[in-house]
C-alpha cells in the first residue's frame, strides 16, 4: 500500500512532537539538578566573604554578631550546631514514641470510623503553619508550663540535665523541644501510619491464630515490616525540626554554650533561628557570615537525609 504524503507529514510531525516532549521531560529533570547546584553555588558565593575577606573585618563581624562570645567562625558556628542538633534531637526523642503510639492506635486499636476521622485530623495538623505553633508556644505554653518544669527540677534536679535554676518564664530548650515535638508529631504519625497499615494481613492473622496477643502480633508482624519506613519518617521529622525557624525564634531565649541543662534559660540557639534573628541587623559582612552558617545547616540536613535514604535503601534491598 502506498502511503499518502499527508500521512507521512503527520507521522513526522508526531515524531517531532515526541522528541520535543522527551527533551522537555529530560530538561525538567536536569533543571532540578541545576536548581540544587544553583542553591549551593549562590550560597557559597554569598558566604565567600566570610572566609576570604580581610581577617580584621571578618573577626569584627563575628565578634559583633556574637556579642563578643566568639572570635572565629568555628567558635561561632560550633555552639549553634550543637544547639540545633540538641533541640531537634530532643524534639524527635519526645515525638517518636508518641507518634508511633498514635499510628498504632489509628491502625490497629481504634474503631474504623474513629480512625478515619483521626487520620484526617492528623493530616490537617501536619499542615498547620509553624508560625502558629510559635504563637501558641510563646503566648499559651510558656506561661503555663513554668510550674511543671519547676516541679521537675525540684524532684529530678539531681540529674544534671534537669538542674535549676528553672527559667522563668520558661523560654528554655526544654519548652522549645516540646513545641517542636508537637509540630513534627503529625508528620511522623501520618507517614508511619501509612506504612504500618500496609503490613501484610496474612502474617498478622497467622500470628493471632498461633495464639499471640495483639501486642505480640504487632511486634512480630507489623513493626519489623515497617521498620525502615518508621526510621525514614522520623528522619523526615528530624529534618523539619532541624530547619524550623519561627517557633524557635518566637520562644527560645538564645545562648551560646555547649550546655545540656535543658531547663535553664539562655543556653542554646539554633542556626535557623539565629539567621532569622540576626539577619535584620547584619551588615554585608555579617550577612555573609549568616549565609555561611546557613550552608552548615544545609550540610547537616543533607547528611540526615542521606542517612535516611541509605537506611531505607538497605532495608528495601
Amino acid at each position, binding site marked *: 500500500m502506498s502511503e499518502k504524503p499527508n500521512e507521512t507529514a503527520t507521522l513526522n510531525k508526531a515524531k517531532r*512532537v515526541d522528541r*520535543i*516532549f522527551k527533551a*522537555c*521531560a529530560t530538561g525538567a529533570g536536569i533543571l532540578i539538578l541545576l536548581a540544587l547546584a544553583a542553591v549551593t553555588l549562590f550560597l557559597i558565593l554569598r558566604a565567600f566573604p566570610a572566609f576570604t575577606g580581610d581577617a580584621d573585618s571578618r573577626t569584627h563581624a563575628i565578634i*559583633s*554578631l*556574637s*556579642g*563578643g*562570645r566568639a572570635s572565629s567562625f568555628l567558635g561561632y558556628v560550633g555552639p549553634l550546631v550543637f544547639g540545633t542538633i540538641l533541640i531537634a534531637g530532643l524534639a524527635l526523642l519526645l515525638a517518636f514514641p508518641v507518634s508511633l503510639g498514635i499510628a498504632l492506635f489509628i491502625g490497629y486499636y481504634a474503631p474504623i470510623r474513629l480512625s478515619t476521622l483521626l487520620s484526617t485530623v492528623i493530616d490537617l495538623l501536619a499542615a498547620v503553619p509553624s508560625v502558629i505553633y510559635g504563637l501558641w508556644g*510563646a503566648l499559651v505554653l*510558656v*506561661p503555663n508550663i*513554668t510550674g511543671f518544669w519547676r516541679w521537675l527540677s525540684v524532684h529530678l534536679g539531681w540529674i544534671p540535665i534537669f538542674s535549676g*535554676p528553672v*527559667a*522563668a*518564664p520558661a*523560654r528554655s530548650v526544654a519548652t522549645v523541644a516540646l513545641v517542636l515535638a508537637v509540630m513534627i508529631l503529625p508528620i511522623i504519625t501520618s507517614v508511619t501510619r501509612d506504612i504500618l497499615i500496609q503490613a501484610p494481613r496474612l502474617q498478622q492473622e497467622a500470628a493471632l491464630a498461633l495464639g499471640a496477643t495483639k501486642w505480640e502480633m504487632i511486634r512480630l508482624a507489623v513493626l519489623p515490616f515497617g521498620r525502615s519506613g518508621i526510621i525514614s519518617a522520623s528522619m523526615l521529622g528530624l529534618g523539619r525540626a532541624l530547619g524550623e525557624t519561627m517557633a524557635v*525564634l*518566637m520562644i527560645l*531565649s*538564645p*545562648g*551560646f*554554650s555547649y550546655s545540656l541543662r535543658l531547663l535553664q*534559660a*539562655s*543556653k542554646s540557639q539554633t542556626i535557623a533561628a539565629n539567621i532569622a*534573628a*540576626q*539577619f*535584620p*541587623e*547584619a*551588615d*554585608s559582612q*555579617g*550577612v555573609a557570615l549568616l549565609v555561611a552558617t546557613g550552608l552548615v545547616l544545609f550540610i547537616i540536613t543533607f547528611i540526615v537525609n542521606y542517612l535516611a535514604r541509605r537506611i531505607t535503601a538497605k532495608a528495601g534491598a
Partner: protein
Amino acid sequence: MHAHGHGRGRFPALLMSLAMMIPLAACGDNVPVNGGETGNTADQTLFQGEFAGSGASSQQSADEAWIAGFRKQHPGARISYDPAGSGAGVNAFLSGSTIWAGTDAPLTADQLERSRKVCGSGTAFDLPVYATPIAVAYNLPDLWPKGSGGHLRMDPALIAMIFSGKVTNWRDPRIAALNPKANLPDLDITVIHRSDKSGTTKSFLSYLHDTAGSAWPYPAGENWPNDLGQGAKGTAGVVMTMNQAKGTFGYADAAQTTGLGTVAVQVGKTWQPPTAKTVANLLDAAQRDPQASQPGRVVLAVDHRTSREHTYPIVLVSYDVVCATYRDDRDGSKAQFAKAWLTYLLSEQGQRMAAANAGSAELGQGLRSQAMASVETIGGKS
C-alpha cells in the same frame, strides 16, 4: 495545573495576567480620617507613586503614624516602611532600592563611602527623627503598700550590678537601702535583655559604661554581652517576657512598658523616672557628635553623666538616612519626596503625631531647626 508538554509557552501569558492586576493597587485601603475620596486633592500630581523606606523596627509605630499623617496632605503618595531592622534598612538604602533608611546607629565611615554610589552628589546623611526614653523596668506587682504607687530607686552602679549578676535577689540590702518603703519580695531577679542586635541595647550599654564605672565590666556594643537571665527578640519580646513572670528586670522603650514598673534613675541628687519630657531635656542639652562632621549629618552625643534637673539620662535616638540628591532620579521626584517627608517628620505636627501614637519624646525646637538646615539642602544644587 496540568502539565501538558507544550505548556511552557504559556508561562509568559500567565505572568502577564498577574501583571494585569496592578490596577488593584488601592484595593482595601482605609480612607483617611478627614474623609474625601483619594484622587480629588489638588496636589495629587505631586508625589504620585511608590516611595519605599525600610529600617529600624523601633520607628515602626511612629512611621505608621507619619505615613497616615503625610498621606492626609499628599493622598497620591504610596509610602511603605519595612521594619526589617537597622542593618537591613541601611543595606537596602545603600543598594538604591529605598529612598530612606531608618537606623538606630549612625552611619559608619564605610557606609558613608558606599553611599556615594546611590547619592547623586556627596554622601548620605543621617538626621534624628525619633527619640524615646529607655526605661529600666521590673515586674513586681505588690511592691508598694496598697494605694500608693511609685518608682523603685536605683543608682547606675546598682543597675549595673544587677545586669552583671552581682545582685541576684530582690531582697538584696543594696536595693533595700535605696528603697526603705518598698515591700521587696524574697525572689530571684531574672534579668531580661534583647537577644537581637539593637540600638536600644547599645544606648543602654553606653549609659552603663559611662556612669557605672567599675561596676560595669563590659564594653558598649549592639549585642548583649553576657549570658545572664533571658534574651528576647525586640522591645515587644522583652516586654512580653517580663509580663510572663514575676521578679523580672529589664530595659525597654518606655512607651511599651505597659503593666510594668519603671525605675527612677539617679541623676545628680535627684531620682528621675522615664518620661518623654525629661528625656527631651536631655536631648536639648546634647552636643553634636564631633566624629560625624561630614556635611549634612546631625548625630547627637548625649551626656549620660548629666546632673541637670528634670533630665532622664537613657535615650534611644533613631535616625533617618537620606541623600541630598539621588542617582537614577531623572525627574527629581525622589529628592522631592525625601525633602517633603523629612520636613513633615521634623515639623511640630509630625513630632506630636509620633508622641501620641508611639509614645516617643518630641524633639525640641533647637534640634529640629539644626536638622531642618540639612533638609533644606535636599534636591538643591551642590
